[in-house]
C-alpha cells in the first residue's frame, strides 16, 4: 500500500504528496520533449520601437 510506503494513512494527503512529485515530473518531461524538439517559432515582427526610458539614468 502506498500509505505504508509514505507513512501517511489519509489518502487525500498521500495523493497530494504524490501529485506534487508527478506534476514536477510532468514539467520536466514536457520541457525535455517540447523544449528540444519543437521548432523555434518565428519571432514576431519587431515590436514598435520602445519609448526611451525617460532619463532613467539621469545622464548629464
Amino acid at each position, binding site marked *: 500500500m502506498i500509505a505504508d510506503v509514505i*507513512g501517511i494513512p489519509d489518502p487525500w*494527503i498521500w495523493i497530494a*504528496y504524490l501529485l*506534487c512529485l508527478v506534476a514536477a515530473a510532468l514539467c520536466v518531461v514536457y520541457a525535455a520533449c517540447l523544449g528540444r524538439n519543437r521548432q523555434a517559432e518565428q519571432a514576431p515582427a519587431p515590436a514598435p520601437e520602445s519609448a526611451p526610458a525617460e532619463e532613467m539614468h539621469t545622464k548629464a
Partner: protein
Amino acid sequence: MKIWEVVAALFYLFAVVYLGYLGWKRTRNASDYMLAGRKAHPAVMALSYGSTFISTSAIVGFGGAAGMFGMSLLWLTFCNVFVGIFIAFVFLGGRTRRLGHALDAHTFPELLGRRYNSRSIQIFAGLVIFLFMPVYTAAVLIGGSEFIVTHFGVPYEPALVTFAVLTAAYVMVGGLKGVMYTDALQAGIMLAGMTVLLVATYSLVGGVVSGHEALTAMKAQVFAGHSAIGHQGWTSMPLFGWGDNRYNLWWIVVTTLVLGVGIGVLAQPQLIVRFMTVKSDRELNRAVWVGGVFILMMTGVAFTVGALSNVYFFKHEVVRGRLIGTTEKADVIAKQERFETRTLPCRLLHIDTTGNGSADTHLVAAGLGKAEALLPRAEIATLADGRVEVRPKSSSFLRAVVASGPGTWMFNADSIIPIYITRALPRWFGVLFLLTLLAAAMSTLSSQIHTMGTGIGHDVFKQLAGPQARSIPVTRAGMMLGILLALAIGYYARGGYVIARATAIFFGLCAAAFLPAFVGGLYSKRVTAGAAKASILTGALVTTFWLVFIKDSEAQALGICNALFGVKSLLANTPNWPVVDPLIVALPLSTLVLAAVTLMGCAEEPAGTLRR
C-alpha cells in the same frame, strides 16, 4: 552576530547590488526597464518567475500555516506546480508573450488595455494593483521580519523597516533587468537553502516514513481550538461538510489557502510580465522544467517541514540555558481579531540559551485553570551548573510564543518556521536560511515594488496625462508610497497567520477581477471590451464586498460592517459562510458576466487589437 555571519550577509548584499548595477547599466529604454529587453534566457526567466512567485510569504507564512494545519497544504504545492507553472507556461505563457509583443505592452494592465482597446481598463487595472498590492507586499515584509526577530532577537518594528529599506534600494534604479539578474542569483540561494532544510528535517525526525508516522501519531496533540473547527491531525485533511462550525477549517484551507493562491497565481501582474521577457515560445517550453522543480522545492519543502516541525518540538526539542525569569500568569493571545481576543492563561518560562544575558526563548511551562488541559506541560530539570533543561512537549503552534508588546505574549503561527530553524538547525544554517529568506523576500518585493510603481506611473498617470508626460517620477513616487503603505499594514497586522491570509487576499482579488478577461482575451476574439470591463468590475466589487461585509476576519479588521450594521459579518450567524474565500463567489460571477455580456454584445465589434 558573529563576524563570519556578517561577512556572508555582506557578500550576498554586495552580489545583489552588483547585479542590480549591471541591470541598471544595461537598461537603455522602457522595454529594458519593464521587460528586460524581451531577450531573457529561459532559465533566468523561469528562476525569476519562480523566485518572484515564492517569497517569505510562502516559506514563513504558509510554512507556518502548515505547522498549524498540517500537510493538507500540499494541495497548494500541487496547484503551485501544476497550475502556477504547467498551465501558466504551456497554456497562457506563449499567447501572452505573442500578444504582448504584438501590442508592445510593457505591463499587465497595458496588455489588457491594448487587447481591448480600452484606456479605462488599463487605468482601472493599474489602480487596483496599486491599491491592493501593498497588502501582499506587507505579507512578504512580515515574513522576513519575523525571522530577523527570532534569529537576532531584535524588536519587530526596526526589523520591518530595515527589511523594507534594503529591498527598496536597488529596485528603484535597476528596473526589471536588474531585478531578473538578482532573481536568478536569489533563486540559486533559495534552492540550496531549501534542499538543506528538507534533508536536515527528515534526518531530525528519523526519516521520511518514520517522520510521517510520528506526525500521524501526534493527532491527540492538536490544539483544542483547532480541533473544534475540524483539525483531524497533521497528516489528515480537515473535516469536510457544510452547516456547522466544525467544518470551518476545511473551508479555510481549501478555499483561502489552496484555491485562493493556487488559482490566483494565473492572474498575478508581476508574474505575467515575465512571459513577455522571452523572445520565443521555445524559451517558455524550456523554462517549464526549471519552474516546476523550483516551485516543488520551495513550497513542497516549506509545507512538509512546517508540518514536521511538530514532531521536532514535541519529541526531540531540548532547551538548555539559564532561566532568566518566569511569568507566573501570562494571558497568551491565541486568537486576536479587532472585536474579539481569546487568551490562554499559563506559566511562561524565559530562558537565555546563548549566554548573552537576555531571554531569547519563551516557553509554556503549563496551562493554568481551564487552560491546563489545552496547553502542553513542559518537563523541567535543573542541571548541575545551575542551568535548566526543558523539554517543551509542545505542538508547533503552542511552541511559537512571541512578545506581542511590552509584557504581552501571543501564539504566532508566522513564527513557527523561524523558531524551528533557530532551534533545530545549526547556527550556520540559520545564516544560510536568512540569506534564503532575504533572497526570497527581495526577489518578490522588488517585483511588487516595480509593479506598484508602473501601475500608478505607467498605467494610470501616463494614460491620464498623455504619452508625452514623464511617468518615471510618478512611478518612483508610487513605489515609495506603496512601500510606506505596506510598512503601515505590516506594523499593525501581526499574528493570526496574517501572512498567508494577506497573500490569499491579493491573489484571490487578481483572479476574480482579471483572470476571465485575461484568458478570454488570449483565447477568443469574440470577447468584447464591454464584457471585459463588466467582468473586471464584477470581480473587483464582489471581492471587495465580501472582504468588507462577509469574510469574518477581514470584515472585523476593516470595521466598516460593524460601523454600519453593528455586526462583525453580515453572515456571522450562518456557519461556514464567514470563512469562505471571496474567490469562490467572485470568480464564477466575473466569468459568468464575461460570457453573458460577450454573448449579448456579439453584434458589437470585437475589441480591435487582435486585428493587428
